[in-house]
């Protein structure tokens, strides 16, 4: 983990309010798992007081050889709105890599993985799928979006494996939700990231096979010190009774913790 002024190599709008940001820096060498995230200070400068807090963003993909990582984020509030104005060449204050990502070795050799994403939960799954396919795992993607204008990275996922895009209004791919098509896919292990209701549905549906979910939670420090991001463990006998999303997660085994 380090704090680094990373350089913006590319910054592009790739869907409605969705930006793809490529950052270069030595931190990329420290990334160990897909699904880790970074904590970004927007606005920079020692005097910045608004936005005050860092913003957690998943690492979408990373290439240690070129020291480049890709982030994909939705610009909505104060921090992401300002971030979206960062121009090529600018430095961005990044803390990372943070947290524990998806365990790719949970899939048996030659096995099959199901990767399920929703909205801005999709980005970290791209790096996950890259890592899985690189290990010879056959990956099926089920990606849910609200509408055609929100869809991104469809081609990129298709290059890695079968990709089913679902939209709520049917304007792209199939109409419906990710859970509608789960029974059409054969898999050994499932991985997911997306809105809490989606994760809850998946935890109800996928009970026979391993499922890993990545959670979101409001954060302070991002490194485990402030206790902002905790969630209860489901096991009442757990010695701590809680997990911190920022450092014990953001990826957890299904039903290990309460979805927040």
């Amino acid at each position, binding site marked *: *983990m380090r*704090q680094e002024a990373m350089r913006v190599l590319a910054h592009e709008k790739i869907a409605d309010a969705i930006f793809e940001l490529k950052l270069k820096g030595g931190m990329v060498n420290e990334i160990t798992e897909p699904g880790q995230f970074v904590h970004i*200070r927007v606005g920079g400068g*020692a005097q*910045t*007081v*608004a*936005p*005050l*807090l*860092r913003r957690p963003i998943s690492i979408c993909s990373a290439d240690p050889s070129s020291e480049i990582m890709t982030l994909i984020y939705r610009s909505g509030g*104060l921090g992401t709105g300002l971030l979206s104005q960062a121009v090529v060449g600018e430095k961005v204050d990044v*803390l990372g890599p943070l947290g524990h990502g998806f365990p790719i070795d949970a899939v048996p050799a030659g096995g099959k993985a199901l990767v399920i994403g929703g909205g801005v939960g999709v980005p970290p799954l791209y790096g996950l799928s890259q890592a899985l396919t690189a290990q010879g795992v056959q990956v099926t993607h089920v990606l849910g979006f609200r509408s055609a204008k929100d869809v991104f990275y469809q081609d990129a996922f298709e290059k890695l494996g079968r990709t089913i895009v679902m939209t709520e209004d049917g304007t792209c791919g199939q109409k419906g939700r990710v859970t509608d098509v789960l029974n059409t896919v054969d898999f050994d292990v499932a991985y997911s990231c997306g809105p809490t209701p989606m994760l809850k549905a998946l935890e109800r549906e996928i009970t026979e096979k391993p499922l890993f979910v990545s959670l979101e*939670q*409001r*954060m*302070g*420090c*991002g*490194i*485990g*010190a*402030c*206790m*902002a*991001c*905790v*969630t*209860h463990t489901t096991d009442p006998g757990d010695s*701590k*009774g*809680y997990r911190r999303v920022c*450092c014990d997660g953001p990826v957890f085994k299904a039903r290990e913790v309460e979805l*927040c």
Partner: protein
Amino acid sequence: MLNVHLPGLDLKNPVMPASGCFAFGKEYGNLYDLNVLGAVIIKAATLESRYGNPTPRVAETPAGMLNAIGLQNPGVDKIISQELPRLAEYDVPVIANIAGSEMSDYVQTAEKMSKQPVVKALELNISCPNVKHGGITFGTVPEIAAELTSKVKAVSEKPVYVKLSPNVTDIVAMAKAVEAAGADGLSMINTLLGMRIDLKSQKPVLSNLTGGLSGPAIKPVAIRMIYEVSQKVSIPIIGMGGIQNADDVIEYFLAGASAVAVGTANFVDPFVCPKIIKELPEKLNGMGISDINELVGRSWKHA
């Protein structure tokens, strides 16, 4: 130049992380050598373990943040057995923040903590706005704060600093009451009580509804209170509230603080404490100051 001597505390410099913003030092200890710090104020200890409040527990505000962690901690015994040994490996005094719902909780927790060799002082948190019973009331009624202070003093083997709440009409009355009751020092300030409402859900952002406001936004309130109190008490003050850099530290000293704690800024920049400690000597040199203690209360001493 940066050495500071306070009751129970021989500090190589006056900069320490604030309670609740540094847990028990493990996470930041992975980032830098904690030995650079003046001291470490650990997260509030309560008699029993606490999970704290439901999430969301934090919200951002203009130049500040709200938190309603709710004193999550593993309880005093586990802190002693699991957290203090790690801190004992450093050459840094530990200040143990103590909280509770009943006076007896405070007293028992304080007694246990004060017996630990690595703990050099207690910080009595009578001002946490995020616990439902006790807590805040202790910090808003001078008589109750005084009673609690003397009870804790009676059992503590270490000096006791009382951490005051800014959510009071008369901060000087609070400070004098706990001084009279035997407090060895003051910590000022804890968070201001605040709220943010989410426009989408139309509900308070924090599940606890209100939270404690910290960060640069509250610095003017803290400076004002320390300016007022430091002129009326003769015990030292650990100042805190929105400190982000060495200039802020100097402003606190000028107001009347004898040491400072840095809270929220650790989240903004995890290396902020060592950075400030590194910047300070240069700033003092620029001011022609050879000993930071000279600055204490200068804004009113030469008025």
